[in-house]
């Protein structure tokens, strides 16, 4: 056990820090912020992600043959820390990088990897995820979208929902029913679908935060080349489990941790300026306990990620423990934003847009967004089933 970084890693950190400083606009995070407008914000994120790619910072730990840098997971974590320190924007192609890519590395053909992976890194192709349907949420295997073989194509019909970033995506990986007669889990296949194919309609859904990150996606006789099948026909369920493991895994969690850590830092500033009972809020002993609890939980989230990285570095597979990461951070983040609103106290009802709200409404938005954390990529109830049944060995 050693949390010191090697000299090489420290050099890497300095390089990363230097590059980030040189490439973010001057005054970033202080007088220059991400745009309020959602579309402009996402376009800005995409531009930043492309900039990172051209600077050689994308896919650090990916193999070189797929456009990666062949660096270590530790260096990837260092880069993430440095991006956070600078308050750099998040990316837009998170689903491509964190979900499509590892899924194809595990289950794709060599041709699929060479076709898709480099363009994920370069952000020429943004990805979305077509798993959930109106009647297949927690019970994902109930999905009904069909794909019927027709010559060298599949013809896809049905509806997907909660499709994040579908309006910006060129590609979607999708679970489809290819054998309606087979037992539920054994008739599902994993398809890669070009979002520009005729027959696809995307309709944005408004979220409780007011944002429209996710969408309904309608599929009407969409023709998908058969070569875009990943793995075996009707073998999609096992592949989806790989995807979900990465969705819940430490790389995804670390990127989020950094955002929580940044918001927490901002919160500690706000706690000093907000007043409560005629004194700075930070002097209130009850609030101090909660803020300290938040500091502890956010730091443990980071360490939990590093602990998982160590397992991965030893070549141990990421298994159902990924559910543990997701269950931990989702509830932690909800407590964090509740504490943030408590810190705002009487000013909590002010929202983004009001000049008097502290931190520009960051915490109100974070609070609303956090309600989704325990729902998406598998509700907490599903994660608990997975942990109880597959880690603890309890009966179904």
């Amino acid at each position, binding site marked *: *056990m*050693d*949390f*010191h*970084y*090697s000299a090489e*890693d420290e050099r890497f950190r300095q390089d990363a820090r230097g590059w980030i400083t040189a490439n973010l606009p001057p005054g970033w995070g202080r007088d220059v912020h991400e745009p309020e407008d959602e579309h402009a914000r996402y376009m800005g994120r995409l531009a930043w992600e492309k900039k990172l790619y051209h600077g050689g910072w994308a896919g650090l730990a990916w193999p070189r043959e797929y456009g990666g840098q062949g660096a270590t997971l*530790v260096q990837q*974590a260092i880069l993430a820390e440095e991006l956070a320190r600078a308050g750099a924007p998040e990316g837009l192609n998170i689903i491509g990088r964190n979900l499509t890519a590892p899924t194809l590395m595990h289950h794709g053909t060599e041709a699929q990897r060479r076709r898709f992976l480099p363009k994920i890194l370069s952000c020429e192709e943004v990805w979305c995820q077509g798993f959930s349907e109106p009647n297949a949420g927690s019970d994902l295997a109930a999905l009904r979208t069909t794909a019927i073989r027709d010559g060298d194509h599949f013809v896809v019909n049905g509806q997907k929902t909660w499709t994040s970033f579908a309006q910006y995506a060129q590609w979607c990986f999708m679970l489809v029913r290819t054998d309606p007669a087979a037992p539920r889990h054994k008739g599902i296949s994993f398809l890669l679908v070009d979002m520009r194919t005729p027959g696809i309609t995307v309709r944005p859904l408004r979220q409780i935060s007011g944002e429209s990150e996710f969408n309904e996606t309608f599929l009407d006789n969409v023709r998908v080349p058969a070569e875009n099948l990943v793995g075996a026909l009707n073998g999609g369920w096992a592949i989806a489990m790989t995807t979900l493991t990465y969705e819940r895994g430490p790389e995804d969690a670390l990127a989020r941790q950094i955002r929580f850590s940044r918001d927490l830092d901002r919160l*500690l500033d706000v706690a000093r300026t907000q007043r409560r009972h005629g004194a700075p809020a*930070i002097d209130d*002993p009850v609030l*101090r*306990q909660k*803020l*300290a*609890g938040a*500091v*502890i*939980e956010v*730091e*443990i989230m980071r*360490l*939990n990620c*590093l*602990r998982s*990285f*160590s*397992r991965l*570095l*030893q070549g141990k597979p990421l298994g159902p423990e990924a559910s*543990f990461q997701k*269950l*931990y951070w989702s509830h932690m983040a909800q407590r964090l934003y509740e504490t943030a609103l408590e810190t705002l106290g009487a000013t909590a009802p002010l929202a983004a847009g009001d000049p008097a709200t502290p931190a520009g409404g960051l915490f109100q938005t974070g609070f609303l967004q956090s309600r989704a954390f325990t729902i998406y990529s598998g509700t907490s*109830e599903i*994660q*608990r*089933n997975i*942990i*109880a*049944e597959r*880690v*603890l*060995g*309890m*009966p*179904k």
Partner: protein
Amino acid sequence: MNFDFSAEQIMVQDSVRSYLADAWSMARLRRLIEDDGDGFDAALWDGLAALGLPAILVPEALGGLGLGFVDLALVLEECGRALVPGPLVETMIATDAIVRFGTEAQRLALLPGIAAGRLRVVPAIVESGDAPLATPLAGGWSLSGHRMLVPWAAQADKLLVAVRFAADAAAGLVIVDPQQAGVSLRAETLFDPTARAFDVSFDRVVFGAAEVLGGGPSAAAVERIGDAGAVAAAAQMCGIAARMLDLAVAYACQRVQFGRPIGAFQAIKHRCADMLVQLESGRTAAYFATWALASAAPEAVRAVSMAKAYCGDASRFICNETIQIHGGVGFAWELDLHLYLRRAKTLEYSYGDATAHRERLLGAVLAGREAA
């Protein structure tokens, strides 16, 4: 950057676990409850000493293994899991302070004996409202006051007493022989009947610089022994919580109600999943804290307080829920659950409880931000 234990560290854990499985049992532990004597299990002490546990932190030149706090982490967890009674862990905590702060003469006098399992040293640092005060005297000091909850004081060869020095208002650790004139012990009645602790009074106990750890007052030594104790408590709580979760899961899989094992009900299995999340997050914090202590990292204060606060809350949740999952038998004296509960509760309030550590951590974080 590496968050893993080495193969050797895991081997030591395995050897401690298998020794305890063979040589130690809850039945043996229960004898300590009925025992009116000193409660000290000499055979267990000798066995664990033969395995080399008290020698872990002692430098090789002084007959020890020359290892650090990280090497102790999994051993401490096993001690918790098996409810190993003191004063083994207490001696390890004191050893850490002696290794770091002792003068050459003090290290020579104490550490070889500790490594060989001949000498038991325990901390006497719990605040009691009448903290021992050292007033200057020709050639030394005179010590009066008392410390409560001194673990296994009657079985200890030396106490490391946290003392205030009147002259310069400094703090320090003083090596006191519990048999020395002016020292008196009152056995305390404890929540954990398998533990022993004493209220120790000091009445004009005379000592010189040779008895002050490091040769003079050292607030750092007092803070360090508290930190070592807090991390040792956090690691032991992880061990107890892990054992409790094992028991909860095993019981839930075997107990049938409404025609099914109760572990098939989500009300039970979901709780067990939450217990696992807290257990593993507690381990993450405790392991990191052992590293921070071992490497004297700048974030040590924060790491220690984080571990003690989080593990205290996690252990509380896991122990309470394990009893709940057992239903009626969970409340029965004959089941061992309450013994784990009592030990865990004691550790939860030893070396600073979660509330105190949260406040300490926030203070450190805010001070760090001021400085930055």
